[in-house]
């Protein structure tokens, strides 16, 4: 009888309570404090603090939500926590790798002569001396840098015409016929060739054609081309496909030949995308180690001839300096050189990646849509 006199707001059976807006922040603060307390008991470290706090946060938020909002909302919160957690976990190695390379690489790079000297004549005795007497670490990466640039350039010179022409065939001439579909399929398959197999192929090819034990920069360039061509084909194909058909039809209507249409209309329209795709392809192969390892050998001296003699490259330089230090008893100078080379390599790759984005942005065709 009382309810008729004092009207209370009846809650609908379909609605449930809601957490306050600040709930995640409250739980976060509590979790951080609790985590710090727990870690203080068993010995504090920042990484453990983060992990424990994240676990406490998840458990706290989900159980609070379960109590107030019901199981469906709680499950939603749990998944949100897991997904954000996955992203944070994925960031950990990235930060750790970049931090490690920076911390270890900068001492190597600032050593005088690191970028301008080769390893020619640098023996374990010098490394031992630098460890024992504190003299600067001798030797540098000039030969490896030069080798990387030569090998990558030659690979680019081989891959770009082949890749671009193939893309033109697929888009302009293929008509989605049987051959075009076969090429598309096998280009996709080629994308998945392990890099070491590409290296073995180039090695086996030159062993059979030139003679056993042929190891030069050119062999490595062929190996890198096998890896690079499919990337160039895929990206150029995508770019040629988005050139509007109206441009082609306008050219045909003016009586322009197909090949001139392609050269003068289609490719200039797509050139920014193609260039950025090629740059990304270069960035992908410049860091490849395995194919160069089996095709170009190791060199400690400067080699300006791609077609003759063993040739060093940055990735193989890093690899050999770590696995076979110049002075086995004192590996520290070698490690320092390896990290320095790794920093240079990462900087190169990042410049290429950024360059690809810049090219795509700056030279994009001005199509108003």
């Amino acid at each position, binding site marked *: 009888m009382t309810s008729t006199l004092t009207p209370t707001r009846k809650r609908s059976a379909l609605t449930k309570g809601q957490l306050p807006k600040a709930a995640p922040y409250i739980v976060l603060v509590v979790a951080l404090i609790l985590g710090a307390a727990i870690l203080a008991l068993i010995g504090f470290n920042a990484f453990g603090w983060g992990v424990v706090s994240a676990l406490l946060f998840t458990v706290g938020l989900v159980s609070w939500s379960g109590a107030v909002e019901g199981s469906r909302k709680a499950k939603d919160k749990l998944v949100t926590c897991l997904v954000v957690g996955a992203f944070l976990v994925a960031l950990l190695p990235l930060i750790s790798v970049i931090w490690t390379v920076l911390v270890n690489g900068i001492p190597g790079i600032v050593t005088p002569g690191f970028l301008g000297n080769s390893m020619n004549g640098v023996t374990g005795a010098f490394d031992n001396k630098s460890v024992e007497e504190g003299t600067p670490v001798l030797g540098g990466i000039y030969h490896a840098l030069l080798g990387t640039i030569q090998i990558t350039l030659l690979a680019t010179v081989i891959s770009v015409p082949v890749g671009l022409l193939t893309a033109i065939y697929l888009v302009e001439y293929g008509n989605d016929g049987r051959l075009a579909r076969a090429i598309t399929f096998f280009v996709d398959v080629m994308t*998945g060739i392990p890099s070491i197999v590409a290296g073995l192929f180039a090695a086996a090819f030159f062993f059979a054609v030139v003679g056993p034990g042929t190891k030069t920069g050119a062999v490595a360039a062929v190996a890198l081309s096998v890896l690079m061509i499919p990337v160039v084909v895929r990206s150029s194909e995508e770019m040629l496909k988005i050139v509007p058909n109206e441009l082609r039809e306008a050219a045909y209507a003016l009586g322009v030949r197909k090949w001139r249409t392609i050269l003068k209309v289609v490719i200039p329209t797509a050139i920014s995308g193609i260039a950025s795709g090629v740059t990304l392809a270069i960035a992908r192969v410049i860091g490849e180690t395995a194919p160069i390892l089996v095709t170009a050998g190791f060199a400690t001296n400067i080699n300006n001839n791609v077609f003759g003699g063993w040739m060093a490259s940055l990735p193989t330089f*890093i690899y050999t300096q770590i696995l076979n230090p110049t002075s086995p008893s004192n590996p520290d100078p070698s490690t320092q050189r390896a990290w320095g080379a790794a920093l240079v390599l990462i900087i190169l790759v990042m410049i290429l990646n950024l360059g690809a984005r810049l090219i795509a942005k700056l030279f994009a065709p001005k199509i108003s849509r």
Partner: protein
Amino acid sequence: MTATSLTSSQGAGRAGDKIFSGAALAAGCLILAVLFGVALFLVVQAIPAFVAPAEDIQGGEGFFSYIWPIVIGTLIAAVIALVIATPVAIGVALFISHFAPRQLASGLGYVVDLLAAIPSVVYGAWGAAVLAKEITPVYNWLADNMGWLPIFAGPASATGKTILTAGIVLAVMVLPIITSLTREIFLQTPKLHEEAALALGATRWEMIKMTVLPFARPGIISAVMLGLGRALGETMAVALVLSSGALTASLIQSGNQTIAAEIALNFPEASGLKVSTLIAAGLVLFVITLAVNMVARWIIGRHKEFSGAN
């Protein structure tokens, strides 16, 4: 008549057309020839290893008993990588496509692409210098508390250079591949499906479970297969991280070896029959990854009209 000048110029144009289309066709065929050549030259150079008397092959028991432990080792490393990378990659892809604020999403995608841009040898060096050291206490704990499981049988490696560490490094390397492919597919879920689910009162997770995941399933499978192809063939991470040895069940002891690392470590100094043996090992790796990739591409192709994976 008057048209002669026109026709002659047309003739020149026609020649240009022929040359150009011929060049394009030749380039396309060259790619097929290269892939065929990869198989052919590997087979030709590998034949001596197959026909050689068993005692001449490394290990002295023939090519088959040389290759199978490292095939198993390759599979172990790749499976570890996928078991770790797949859930994380799907989580990251979901985060970028459905959880992160719109303005952040493309920037976060670029961060994940950065992971893919770092050269494999740097990952290898990082795995050997940092990860192996940091993870040793975990291995000791596993050996003490879970040692009854054969895969965690102790004593744990003191250097941390085990197949599990190599697998973790591989996981970091395949993560961006799986992430970028699945993210593309998640983004292509029909907006109307998602909105219908939300309009019926579904929470975000229920919406994802009911619309995004069923739509993306074939895409996820093929992305994982492509990641598997990469993990099988990755060389440097394993060559630098793993201190290799005979095939062992325990993941936290040194031991095991993968095909790619075996080739990279031995090829530079190899000669004679050893070269053939290693090339034969490369052929085996090529066949395995080819099969994995073809299955992945076939799944993508079958669902081409739904997914934008390629």
